[in-house]
């Protein structure tokens, strides 16, 4: 009885469900109310592609990313187990693939055979690693862990919460959320045509793990003496790795389905027997591989010779507090969206093209949606790659002797829209909510003449640029709802030496 339930396949399924639930749980916990001390970015830290690529851009393995070494070592011994046992993206794709194809009469042997299309992921990997070697981190676009974290944060969780309110107190709103959601759904729907299309053909992390599992110590073997060539082993194959002939270990996910499906018990996992089949080498075209790497080499100078936040300061690119200098920020940010998930006010938004093509989906602060909470440093706590480096509240607020607060930008008045300046109407909500002490927003009392000739005493606000930290609560609470009369831009940000305006501060 126990042996029938605890088959290799079911053990894998238990792990898969466990890691999928753990992923969703950790992402849900990524908020002020639930976070406590949990290692919420765990899956991102286990991601070898994130650590390898960010190592290439800046020659460091930042804090928790060192956990990915466990996955690398495990893969060297056991093969590419991550993809079907741990990876939430792989597990979701597997579930979708089996649901889509269970209901139709399909030739599963044909669907699960190896195709030359599956080389594509190695070319993506070559492109991204070449870019990383030059100093641009773009793996996050297709790296599955940042991809699924970002999709869940920006689109799936907010959609689940909509009109129910059981995940968030305030419905989160993200720019470009529908677009990201549609990309995610398209990836899921691709399983309808080719099961695990993403994992087999696109995923650069899968390609990296494939390379690492080129010669694993333990692997799947087929006993040629026992095999009757019935091809039943292909029926449920996850990786499309041809267990019926010479196995491609670089593609094998260790799903163990072939072992369970084989009626002759000809397939086993472990060390080879004398009658075991040989293995197929990695199937990539060397010419294509070099071409992809060259494409990266061409793309890099192209991306660096346009207007981006890296080449000249962009006023809308306000980075979360604790962010490192922009050039290094782009070397470290994997666009995972953890900071956007944890932000209590929803101010951190995925950039579209404000920061240039290189900075797509990197975090920027949009103060009409939220504002940077004065006593909050949560985004710096969850960033897995150190693009936002760790801050304490004391450090953020500059509480120590001789310390200055971290400034993300500076507020400016648009006097043509400000009620006291343009319309002689009392307001100064901005002064009320300004969190610094003394307040960066101050006012002067004027005697103004109204249209009918009467006079009135009126308070008009000013910004003290030396006290303003750019938190944006003034912009957020400004009663001019569509385009605020006080707006924050990135000038004066602490992390930059060049994006400054005041000579003495």
């Amino acid at each position: 009885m126990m042996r029938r339930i605890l088959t290799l396949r079911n053990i894998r399924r238990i792990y898969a469900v466990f890691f999928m639930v753990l992923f969703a749980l950790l992402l849900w916990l990524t908020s002020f109310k639930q976070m406590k001390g949990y290692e919420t970015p765990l899956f991102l830290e286990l991601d070898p592609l994130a650590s390898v690529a960010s190592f290439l851009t800046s020659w460091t393995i930042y804090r928790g990313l060192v956990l990915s070494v466990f996955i690398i070592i495990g893969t060297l011994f056991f093969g590419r187990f991550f993809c079907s046992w741990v990876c939430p993206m792989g597990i979701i794709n597997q579930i979708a693939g089996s649901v889509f194809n269970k209901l139709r009469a399909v030739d599963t042997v044909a669907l699960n055979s190896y195709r030359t299309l599956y080389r594509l992921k190695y070319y993506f990997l070559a492109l991204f690693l070449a870019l990383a070697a030059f100093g641009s981190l773009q793996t996050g676009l297709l790296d599955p862990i940042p991809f699924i974290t970002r999709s869940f944060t920006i689109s799936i969780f907010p959609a689940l919460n909509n009109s129910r309110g059981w995940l968030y107190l305030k419905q989160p709103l993200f720019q470009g959320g529908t677009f990201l959601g549609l990309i995610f759904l398209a990836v899921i729907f691709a399983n309808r045509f080719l099961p695990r299309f993403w994992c087999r053909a696109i995923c650069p992390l899968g390609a990296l793990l494939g390379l690492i599992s080129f010669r694993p110590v333990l692997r799947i073997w087929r006993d040629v003496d026992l095999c009757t060539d019935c091809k039943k082993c292909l029926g449920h194959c996850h990786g499309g790795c041809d267990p019926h002939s010479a196995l491609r270990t670089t593609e094998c996910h260790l799903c163990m389905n072939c072992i369970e499906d084989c009626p002759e018990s000809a397939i086993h996992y472990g060390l080879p027997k004398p009658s075991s089949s040989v293995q197929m080498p990695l199937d990539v075209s060397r010419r294509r591989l070099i071409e992809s790497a060259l494409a990266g080499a061409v793309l890099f100078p192209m991306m660096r010779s346009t207007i981006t936040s890296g080449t000249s300061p962009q006023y809308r690119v306000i980075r979360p507090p604790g962010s490192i200098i922009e050039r290094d920020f782009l070397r470290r940010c994997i666009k995972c969206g953890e900071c956007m998930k944890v932000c209590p006010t929803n101010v951190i938004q995925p950039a579209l093209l404000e920061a240039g093509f290189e900075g797509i989906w990197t975090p920027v602060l949009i103060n009409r949606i939220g504002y940077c909470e004065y006593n909050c440093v949560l985004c710096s706590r969850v960033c897995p790659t150190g693009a936002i480096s760790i801050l304490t509240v004391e450090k953020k607020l500059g509480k120590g002797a001789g310390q200055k607060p971290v400034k993300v930008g500076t507020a400016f008045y648009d006097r043509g829209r400000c009620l006291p300046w343009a319309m002689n109407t009392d307001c100064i909500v901005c002064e009320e909510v300004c969190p610094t002490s003394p307040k960066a927003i101050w006012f002067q009392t004027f005697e103004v003449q109204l249209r009918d000739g009467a006079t009135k005493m009126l308070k008009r606000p000013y910004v003290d640029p030396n006290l303003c930290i750019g938190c944006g609560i003034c912009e957020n609470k400004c009663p001019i709802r569509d385009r605020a009369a006080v707006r924050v831009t990135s000038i004066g940000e602490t992390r930059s030496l060049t994006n400054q305006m005041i000579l003495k501060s």
Partner: protein
Amino acid sequence: MSRRQFLLRTAATCGIAAAAGAWGYVFYSKEPVRRSDTKIFTFKDFRTEEKRVYPQLAVVRGKDADKMVRTAIEKIGGMGRFISPGEKVLLKPNAAWDRQPEQAANTNPAVVGTVVRLCLEARASGVWVTDVSVNDPYRCFARSGIEDAVKRAGGRIRFTTENDFVLTDLKGESLKVWPVSAFYHQADKLINLPVVKHHSLSKCTMAMKNLYGCLGGQRNRLHQDINTSIADLASAIRPTLTVMDATRVLKRNGPTGGNISDVSIENTVVAGVDLVAIESYGLRFLDLKVEDIPFITMADKRGIGISDWRSLNVAEIDV
């Protein structure tokens, strides 16, 4: 085609055609969208019957907030005078800012906790504590210590989500129909728990301005006519009881504060029913006079309360 078939088919087509005609007739409208009639609420009067035997204002000075609140409420007749067994009580502290108790931007959590306990001792069926915070509500309630104090005392924090607002007619001069937290219409009694603070536009924020925290929507527009707005709020909402926290007073850089040097320790709690009298009494902590504050004069003129607190029966106690 047989006759039977022809008749059946024609009848069916006529039926569908009639339905199409009826659809056009029933739904014909000169308006582009249907206006749904949302119910507009009004505030109930939360006050209980006035009893002249008790002092109208109790001012208690001391070090122990719990003892001070208990003494103050005892003096004006005990919680039993205000709350009948089985009633649901709503507490409105000032929990607007993500600040710690020492910074005095929010109501002292010890005061809130004791009021929750007193309500439960008076056999209230439930005690809800709510505010529409300016900063992130989770952070405001957690870091102000109010969440912890309320939970320990056996009360419940109610965060107001976007769906919890209902339109309410305040019938004021400048405040007409506004979205108001629905909890105010679900509770039987309302206890106002303000803190004394400096405010740069209205000069002070105490018992009357604390009511601002029931509003949702674009309430920052109230600043454009802040004195009339505060007077309107005080005439629309009549709390059962007000317990004003002047244990720590934020003297400058209000209402957010943030620097301990702006906080003055005053160790006082004021309790009573008359909002305006409490407000006028509180002015002493900020070195202001009734004449400086237009909304107090307005409220006095409208008959909401009496600004000359010296004319009332005031009990001053040290504990």
